[in-house]
């Protein structure tokens, strides 16, 4: 298979995975319709939240990147299988009696799980180790952190991550596709990841305009076109537009271009339906995902959430939303405290 074909396949599979994962906690709407862009946005948020929840403790425990890859492959298989079953639940409900429905669902679940797991693991086993090395090569953050925290163990991050606060964890999610499709790291990050992220950003912006305009199709589409043209024309090296367009594959790019607009989309959903549980779950996942993407999120995310939740609480007169917002911020705020305490702990220890 040519590199172009494998790269295209990686992009399609990554979008499919995001779509399936997004099916686990759908946005929903008053009309009951679930748009593709909202499903992808939910998928992005849950994907990186799960990645963070998986990788952070394993990295803390010093597990090798290769083992982390394999565990992540298993988790992705599980999430995709659950999502497929959830999507087809309505179909099975119509097929027959309850017992039959559950039997079908169980068989389908096991088949999808086995299929996805087998594909992921079979392809990872020969190429996972190479990609572990490539990650260490690409992520200079890992190198710098290990240098600062582990003293003489320069380079030990090649296969293990012994530092308590490991940066660039989101790379592991992206590099997973390098291993699956044997595409070079730079191609994956700067072509597949960049393309998908700019596309996601555009879809989310369109959905935001759609909600802000009271679900009008034409103005929301025109707004999205203006938005994307503005992103390209107004960018400078360090501006938000520049970070998104030129560095969409980086954690900061994803934070600014996808996660913060995604947070706005979640808040707009809550504005319509404050009691919708899925949106509270997504909000919490957004807080966790933010920390995975960038250390900048530990102050950007709480600030963005404050600015969004205040008008929501005032307009809906529901102070309970503040408690939910605090729950969303648990991980970013914990990370802030850890960052403040970490130098103190290192100093005290040594």
């Amino acid at each position, binding site marked *: 298979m040519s590199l172009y074909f494998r790269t295209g396949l990686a992009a399609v599979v990554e979008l499919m995975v995001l779509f399936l994962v997004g099916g686990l906690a759908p946005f929903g709407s008053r009309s009951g319709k679930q748009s593709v862009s909202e499903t992808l946005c939910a998928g992005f948020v849950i994907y990186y939240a799960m990645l963070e929840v998986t990788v952070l403790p394993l990295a803390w425990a010093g597990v090798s990147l290769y083992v982390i890859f394999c565990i992540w492959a298993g988790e992705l298989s599980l999430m995709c299988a659950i999502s497929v079953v959830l999507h087809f639940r309505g179909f099975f409900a119509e097929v027959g009696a309850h017992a039959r429905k559950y039997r079908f669902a169980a068989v389908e679940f096991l088949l999808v799980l086995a299929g996805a797991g087998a594909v992921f693991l079979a392809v990872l086993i020969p190429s996972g180790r190479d990609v572990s*090395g*490539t990650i*260490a*090569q*690409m992520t*200079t953050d890992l*190198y*710098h952190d290990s*240098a600062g925290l582990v003293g*003489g163990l*320069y*380079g*030990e991050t*090649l296969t293990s991550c012994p530092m308590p606060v490991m940066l660039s964890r989101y790379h592991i999610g992206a590099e997973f596709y390098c291993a699956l499709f044997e595409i070079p790291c*730079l191609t994956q990050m700067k072509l597949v990841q960049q393309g998908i992220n700019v596309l996601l950003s555009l879809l989310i*912006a369109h959905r*935001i*305009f759609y*909600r*802000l*305009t*009271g679900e009008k199709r034409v*103005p929301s589409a*025109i*707004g*999205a*076109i*203006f*938005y994307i*043209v*503005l*992103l*390209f*024309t*107004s*960018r*400078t090296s*360090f*501006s*938000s*537009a520049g*970070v998104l367009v030129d560095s969409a594959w980086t954690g*900061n790019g994803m934070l600014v271009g996808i996660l913060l*607009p995604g947070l*706005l989309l979640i*808040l*707009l959903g809550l*504005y319509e339906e404050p009691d919708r549980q899925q949106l509270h779950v997504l909000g919490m996942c957004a807080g966790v995902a933010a920390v995975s993407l960038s250390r*900048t999120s530990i*102050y*950007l995310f709480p*600030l*963005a959430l*404050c*600015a*969004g939740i*205040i*008008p929501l609480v005032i*307009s809906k007169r529901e102070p309970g939303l503040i408690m939910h917002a605090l729950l969303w911020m648990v991980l970013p705020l914990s990370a802030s405290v850890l960052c*403040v305490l970490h130098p103190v702990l290192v100093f005290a220890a040594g």
Partner: protein
Amino acid sequence: MTGYSAYESGFSFLRKTIRLYEQPGFFLVLAAAGLFLIILLGMQSGRLFLAFPTVFFFLTVLNPFVFPAFIRGGAVSGEDYYRLLWLIPYGMLIAFGTITLAYRMKKGLPRNIFYLAVLVVLGITAVPSLKTMADLRLPSDIYMTDEQLQMVCNYIIDESGIDEPEVAFDNEEYRLSAREYSAALRISHLFEDAGDTASVQAMNKSLRAWHPDFIVVRKESDAASYLDELGMSEEAYTREYLVYRHT
């Protein structure tokens, strides 16, 4: 607090930060216009979720009277402060402001002409950006590292016979970028420990502590003479660097 003023620490800092890091002034004016249009003519959801957050940020973290304390408190460093400007949704303010204004116009030809005019303006502003993009080229060296460093790394990887050789570079830049070229290298702390003004004794002590497989030093550096005095002889050399093997 001596010498501190909101003007010196706040206004000028904010102005410099925006000038250095944010969009060209033309777009900032458009974003401000979009904000006013949303506040004056927009729907409630637009006011709540686009206009309110923008005003909120300018009253809090981007307020010249407030953020100096924010920076001094250690919440965000002065170098990273520009990232707070990412919170302002410039593109959305302009785009949604345009839509808001269009919806105050008569449906049909006037509104379509307005949309077209905006697209033409945006297209004109896109020309310099497109020219820049047309000039973009892939670098011939995908690693974007020094040629001398690549030669040294290639030699060590090919000749050492060790899977992950530990290498001590006296050049700090090389210590930071060598693993971007090859993740097979492990970087030693030898020279950080010995310091730039190391003596022969300090170098000897550090060598016993760190045991790197290879030592790479600049030809004209003091470290090269210290290593010679310690009885080590170079195994290879490039135009600027000497490579010693430590046994």
